[in-house]
């Protein structure tokens, strides 16, 4: 008990720490930087939160400027609890990406309301850095990254100002300083970027909702899924060929292969992927290329028919589909080799059964039609031709907006509406083939792509999404048949825009060959920048890193070597900087140091001391060109001359000189 009392007394006697209060100017910079950090997400946050954030920012600024007092504790508590509840109500959680960012924004705003001292300011600066980084969870586009860089510079400037608020920095000095610091950090950034060991797979888990909302192909196909996707001009992936870009009729980018049909919906029935390429007999030469895939949150990798190579950590199904172990959540680049001409082997019985299976009932007219075709005892090739002939000769239309189909979707399409998009044609074709006894399956993916003439690579957009069919023929194996080509041949040759008559819904960038050509050219050159950004920055993963480092002549290098190299380079850089500083170290004489400081300030105003110019002569020259400074310049110079060349140096006078130089404003 006595101990307790003693402790209490000690605590009471301890003098309060002198707390440095945040000056309005430093606070203004901080508020500005926080505002800019929050801007990119502002439209995505719940409206009440955006308003709250803005209102608190303005309120806090008025408090600082007008000298009002901070809100009482209880009010702060009420705001914080309400904000917390608001986030909970909106997102049903406080965790995960969206709720987390919203919560961070709300709490940053609340922190502002109790920010009074320098220490609070520092806490806010770090909250600000977090806020900046949270933007990268949503997008890593080059423009956003440049913007965030600028915000970081500003945040750093605010931090500098917070720590040196009494140093009397000039208005733009913090920016200048933070820019200088950022420039100095660039070598370290590059070393870390290039050499920090990249580990396959995510280093730490991001919340599950971090990758939602990506557009792309889906695992199943119903009428309308591909045509919906075609209305987006987002880039799916870009491809750089190690030779000329092949003709469009070879550009079939293989995605999910669909085996199972329930009368309306096609779903995949692929077996487990194997970690060796599925063998086939290539005919002719191979195509070598690299694909830079945009994040899709899917495990699919796309390759031209037929892929003969496996990227690391990837397997291949028996239907030649590439599957990665982890979903592609970052820009991912991989090397591929494909043979456009090929023969696959025999069909095993299980697969044959699956490739012929149809729902027990439904679509009687289609079945009747195929029965008619088979009566002639036609060979499978003739059956394919018959089906394509049907699409070509009857009044079929290729359209983005087909009418709705009834329960017998294939019948409805073939005999009633006759208007459809590629999934309708592929689906109907495979149905007909199966009904006619020819093993067949639907393949989804992308077809074609746009050549970027500036960067000489191919851009494949979501609007290039496509579905086609494969039929199995004795002696040749799986053969690609694209019924869309029978209806709209220019879809294959020139892309979607050329093939459609109702193009209003196509976004601008998907209108290849449309008007506004110069604007498209502009977009293409911008895409080149994006592609380089993707290839060299975002897709710089473990494989790219190894490739790059061995390209530099390091040979095979593992993560341990990289760590050593990185440490050595960082250490070397540190030593280099230290060495340079040591060589250029300023004079130790405080008098000379202060005077040099003074000279540097004048030099920034274009009044540099000449090499041989003495202090008084220099002062007179400055006084002549800047009469407003004459007094202080003469005084500083006189004092300096006295201290430097006079017989005695008194500490008081040195202090006086230092103070004068500090207060000097050129």
């Amino acid at each position: 008990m006595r101990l307790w009392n003693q402790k209490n007394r000690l605590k009471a006697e301890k003098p309060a720490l002198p707390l440095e209060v945040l000056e309005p100017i430093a606070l203004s910079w901080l508020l500005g930087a926080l505002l800019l950090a929050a801007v990119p997400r502002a439209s995505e946050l719940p409206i009440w939160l955006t308003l709250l954030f803005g209102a608190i920012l303005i309120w806090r600024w008025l408090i600082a400027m007008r000298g009002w007092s901070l809100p009482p504790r209880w009010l702060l508590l009420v705001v914080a609890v309400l904000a917390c509840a608001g986030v909970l109500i909106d997102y049903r959680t406080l965790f995960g990406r969206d709720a987390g960012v919203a919560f961070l924004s709300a709490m940053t705003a609340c922190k502002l309301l109790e920010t009074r001292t320098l220490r609070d300011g520092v806490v806010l600066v770090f909250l600000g850095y977090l806020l900046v980084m949270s933007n990268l969870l949503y997008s890593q586009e080059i423009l956003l990254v440049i913007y965030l860089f600028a915000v970081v510079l500003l945040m750093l400037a605010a931090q500098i100002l917070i720590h040196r608020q009494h140093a009397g920095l000039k208005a733009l000095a913090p920016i200048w300083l933070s820019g200088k610091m950022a420039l100095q950090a660039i070598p370290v950034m590059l070393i870390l970027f290039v050499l920090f060991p990249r580990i396959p797979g995510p280093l730490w888990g991001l919340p599950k909702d971090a990758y939602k909302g990506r557009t792309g192909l889906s695992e199943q196909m119903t009428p309308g899924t591909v045509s919906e996707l075609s209305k987006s001009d987002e880039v799916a992936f870009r491809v750089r060929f190690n030779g000329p870009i092949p003709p469009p009729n070879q550009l079939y980018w293989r995605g999910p292969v669909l085996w199972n049909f329930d009368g309306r919906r096609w779903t995949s029935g692929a077996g487990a992927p194997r970690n060796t390429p599925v063998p086939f007999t290539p005919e002719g030469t191979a195509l070598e290329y690299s694909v830079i895939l945009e994040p899709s949150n899917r495990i699919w990798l796309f390759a031209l028919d037929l892929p003969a190579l496996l990227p690391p950590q990837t397997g291949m199904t028996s239907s030649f589909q590439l599957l990665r172990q982890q979903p592609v959540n970052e820009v991912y680049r991989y090397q591929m080799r494909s043979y456009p001409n090929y023969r696959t082997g025999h069909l095993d019985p299980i697969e044959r059964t699956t490739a012929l299976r149809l729902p027990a009932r439904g679509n009687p007219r289609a079945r009747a039609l195929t029965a008619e075709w088979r009566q002639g005892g036609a060979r499978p090739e003739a059956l394919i031709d018959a089906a394509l002939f049907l699409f070509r000769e009857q009044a079929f239309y290729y359209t983005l907006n087909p009418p709705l189909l009834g329960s017998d979707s294939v019948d409805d399409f073939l005999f009633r509406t006759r208007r459809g998009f590629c999934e309708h044609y592929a689906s109907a074709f495979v149905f007909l083939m199966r009904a006619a006894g020819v093993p067949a399956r639907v393949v989804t993916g992308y077809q074609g792509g746009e050549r970027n003439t500036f960067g000489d690579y191919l851009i494949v957009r979501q609007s290039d999404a496509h579905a086609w069919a494969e039929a199995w023929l004795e002696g040749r194996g799986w053969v690609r048949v694209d019924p869309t080509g029978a209806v709209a041949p220019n879809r294959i040759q020139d892309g979607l825009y050329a093939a459609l008559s109702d193009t209003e819904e196509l976004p601008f960038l998907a209108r290849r060959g449309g008007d506004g050509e110069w604007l498209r050219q502009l977009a293409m050159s911008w895409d080149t920048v994006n592609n380089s950004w993707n290839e060299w920055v975002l897709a710089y993963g473990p494989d790219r890193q190894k490739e790059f480092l061995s390209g530099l002549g390091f040979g095979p290098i593992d993560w341990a070597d990289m760590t050593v190299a990185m440490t050595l380079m960082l250490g070397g850089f540190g030593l280099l900087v230290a060495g340079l500083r040591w060589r250029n170290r300023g004079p130790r004489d405080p008098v000379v140091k202060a005077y040099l400081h003074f000279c540097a300030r004048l030099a920034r105003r274009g009044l540099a001391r000449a090499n041989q110019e003495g202090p008084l002569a220099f002062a007179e020259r400055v006084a002549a060109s800047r009469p407003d400074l004459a007094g202080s310049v003469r005084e500083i110079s006189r004092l300096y001359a006295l201290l430097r060349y006079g017989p005695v140096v008194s500490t008081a006078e040195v202090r006086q000189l230092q103070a004068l130089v500090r207060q000097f404003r050129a």
Partner: protein
Amino acid sequence: MGAVLENGLDLAIRQVGSIILGKERAIRLALTCLLARGHLLIEDLPGMGKTTLAHALAHSLGLHYQRIQFTSDLLPADILGAAVYERQRETFVFHPGPIFAQLILADEINRATPKTQSALLEAMEEGQVTIEGETRPLPEPFFVIATQNPAYQIGTFPLPESQLDRFLMRIELGYPDVQAERALLEGEDRRDLLARLPVAMAPEQLHEAQARVSSIHVAPPLLDYVQALLTFSRQSNRFRSGLSPRAGLGLLRAARAWALLHHRGHVLPEDVQTVLSAVVSHRLHPAEDSLEQSAADLVERLLTAVTLPA
């Protein structure tokens, strides 16, 4: 006492300045030279006020003044004096020459023969005269202002380099500027003005001022600078030969005197720079392939090439 001294010096400068118009810098340099116990060579065309300057300086400082007009038939004895036999006393009595004065104007020194020139220069150097085995000290202070017409005039014996080195400074007066010329033309006769000139300071004060010169503080960084100047003159290929140690001593002494004249107890780099041209221009000669051929350019080169560390 210090203030009295400084006032006296300022007054002297003002007084001489009222007679030699618009030449304050030359006057100050002349006085600096006197305070540094050096001798002054004024090189200029006739009629520029050389004589008047010397006369005014002597008057203002209350110095015993002698003028020696150098001619081609002037003999050493005409300057130094000679022992003359006096019949009444039956001994040789020394009759001192005009050199036994405190301020001597050696007018047109390059008109005399080298033999006569060297008699004067030796006396200047040693501060004493030895005639027929007897050494006689020269008065204190002893200050020679020699004038010389530019060497290209006919019938002259230009001073050799070794002799030039005896002069602490060489200056030129140059033409007066427009305003000074106007005031000169409008004003009274200079000789009348000179006659009315009061004495600005006593000889003891001048002596004390001369003594004070050596107490002016010289800081290590300033010595660094002076040494850098000397080193550059010796190492650069612009100069035929570098500055001698005597030149270095003279430079520092002149800078001290200049600082004293400006009421400062320590020498600043500016002091060195101001007196530099007067002290070294007659000691530096361009190398044959040097870009700078005139003395002024050479000094300018020296001044700009050597960095003054802050």
